[in-house]
């Protein structure tokens, strides 16, 4: 069991997470988060570089012989919008960047561009709609961002927009936008400042995960690691299920992960079959140290591991995520205890990893 473990989530980390979540960094425009990452890693890194796509690749060398080169990836980008057409008077058309359901957009405050100019995705008042209209989802094409006439000149086509959600901590829960994957970034920053001494830690703060795992692909090529861990955020669909037969709420068996049940270890998703040796190793460490963990239900979705594991001649990979509800919406919710368990699991699993962990005969 772990006592007084220094990988606990502390207040500084919560402050850092708030800063990260409040940054505007839509896929392809990750600068605001990149600045924060560089500010944090530069003082302690043995090597830092920013590659042609904007990935931050930071290395800390460990001590000892035959050290494993371990890549840990967390993506800096979030899903958002891009302004695509100026209709005058501060009204703009937009499109989504990454997977955002259109149902999540009406009547929201957005934050636009590097200056965080406020804008509204409005909605036609209920009084001016008919019952049959209200039974159909509002098409994305009908939606507009409205910045008002005064600020019309402060935004332009090509600017990105993100939800302008306020970060809240309430008991053991955090609600914010972009918990996917700023929580992974926060964990990786902590790991980078307290690295397991037995490995070479290659931290990859990747770009463009949400639009096709694109940053991770080139980062893995450049880093050429022995193994990789993708640190992401995965849906907790642990809402009540619906029993069609009984026509009422019932036990949900397709929850993906559940809040409060610890770090989510992936066995398989749409992008990757996690290396079984790594899965065994992580589970063994969790059991030995009393870290709370769960298995993410196999199914859809992908992480940076999807692009990493097929790079070069193959890189054994695993994904470990913090569960969160309502990701890719304005307000996601995660538990600090799940965050902490994920952070501890990564640290202790990598501290305990050796070349033998990857024995085929083990």
């Amino acid at each position, binding site marked *: 069991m772990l006592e007084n473990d220094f990988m606990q989530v502390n207040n500084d980390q919560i402050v850092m997470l708030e800063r990260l979540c409040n940054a505007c960094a839509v896929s392809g425009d990750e600068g605001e988060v990149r600045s924060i990452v560089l500010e944090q890693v530069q003082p302690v890194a043995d090597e830092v570089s920013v590659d042609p796509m904007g990935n931050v690749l930071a290395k800390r060398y460990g001590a000892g012989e035959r050290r494993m080169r371990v890549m840990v990836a967390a993506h800096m980008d979030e899903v958002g919008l891009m302004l695509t057409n100026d*209709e005058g008077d501060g*009204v703009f058309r937009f499109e989504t960047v990454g997977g955002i*359901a259109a*149902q*999540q957009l*009406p*009547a*929201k*405050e957005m934050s636009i561009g590097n200056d965080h100019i*406020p*804008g*509204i*995705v*409005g*909605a*036609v*008042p*209920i*009084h*001016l*709609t008919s019952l049959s209209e*209200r*039974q*159909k*989802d509002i098409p994305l094409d009908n*939606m*507009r961002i*409205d*910045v*008002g*006439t*005064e*600020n019309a000149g402060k935004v332009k086509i090509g600017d990105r927009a993100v*939800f*302008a*959600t*306020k970060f*809240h901590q*309430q*008991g053991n829960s955090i*609600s914010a936008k972009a918990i996917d994957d700023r929580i992974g970034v926060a964990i990786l920053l902590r790991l980078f400042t307290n690295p397991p001494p037995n490995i070479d830690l290659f931290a990859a703060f990747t770009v463009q995960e949400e639009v096709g795992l694109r940053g991770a692909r080139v980062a893995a090529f450049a880093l050429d690691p022995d193994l990789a861990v993708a640190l992401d955020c995965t849906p907790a*669909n642990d*809402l*009540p*299920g*619906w029993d*069609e037969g009984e*026509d009422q*709420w019932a036990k*949900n068996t*397709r929850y993906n992960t559940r*809040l*409060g049940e610890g770090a989510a270890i992936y066995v398989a998703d749409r992008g990757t079959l996690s290396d079984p040796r790594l899965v065994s190793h992580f589970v063994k460490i969790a059991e030995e140290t009393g870290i709370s963990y769960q298995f993410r239900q196999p199914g859809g979705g992908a992480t940076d591991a999807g692009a990493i594991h097929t790079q070069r001649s193959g890189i054994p990979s695993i994904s470990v995520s913090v569960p969160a*509800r*309502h990701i890719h*919406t*304005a*307000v996601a*919710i995660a*538990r600090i205890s799940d965050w902490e368990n994920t952070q501890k699991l990564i640290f202790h699993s990598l501290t305990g990893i050796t070349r033998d962990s990857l024995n085929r005969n083990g």
Partner: protein
Amino acid sequence: MEDKFIFLKSLISTSGLSGYETPVRKQVSSAWEPLADELKTSRLGSLHGLRKGSGDEPRESILLAAHMDAIGLMVTGKVEGFLRVTEMGGIDGRVLPGQAVTVHGREELNGTIALPPNHLLPSHLHGKAVPLEYLLVDVGLPPSEVEEKIRVGDLVSFAQPPIELGKDILAGHSLDNRASVAALTFCLNNLQGRAFEWDVWAAATVQEEETFGGAYTSAFELTPKLAVAIDVTHGAGPGTKEHKTVPFGKGPALGWGPNIHPALHEAFKTVAGRFEIPHILEALPRHSGTDAFAMQVAAAGIPTMVISIPLRYMHTPVEMVVLKDITRTARLLAEFIVELDDQFMQKLAWDTE
């Protein structure tokens, strides 16, 4: 201008759902304290503030009514730590997914409105907009804490903070109708130190969004000679049709139709013209959807007027107003009041053959 913005922002940050207006009534009461000769609360909770005129007694009075209640949600059930809710006021369920809310339980809790994934919804809803009954409020707490802290009947209000879109445009929830409460307050402020004959009753009414209960009962209790409902109306914006809205940011809308006494409309229009206050004609062919509907038929009947502040995205958490339209409304009301004399009611006499 800045102080007015601050006051309006604090007004929309105070809870006051229909039937539960106490928090906002307290706030308006503090604001009206220095501006009224008398303040009292009606039996249903409306706030009445009196500014006495200087005319000979018995003085005629004008009632200016702005409803202070706002729309929101109410908890109808708990399922595994999530809340089921119903609407208090007309809400399009399609604007709810992902909204930040405050649950007013045994303590104030932050929450969000969750749209369950398709595989957790009945199949007859696949491909359709999900109605309010199937949305869930998530406060992120374990079910045992939810049991302890939240009850059926607890209120849920929007938590969208006010949004400043430049110096003169404000957005947020409850601008319907706190924008009008602000206009009424600015009118009272304008009347400070000015001479006028009639008594002025300012009423921040309750329950407009559900029953018009405040308007019916305040008009009956105060027995004014004239009653003006100050409300909001649809300002033209993205997705709206021109013929269903009024221009946005071009001044208050003066209502015309069966809820409005035509001569009273003309009188307001004349004052607006004389003082060069931009204004718009709004056709209200049927139920005006305002307190005027109720006040007109209180007791033996009262001549009523509707003055509306154009507002975009009504009944969503991102309603939008131009501050200038609020100050124009305040000024129009004040100048109208200052001109009222003991001959005014004759203008409203209907023609007799």
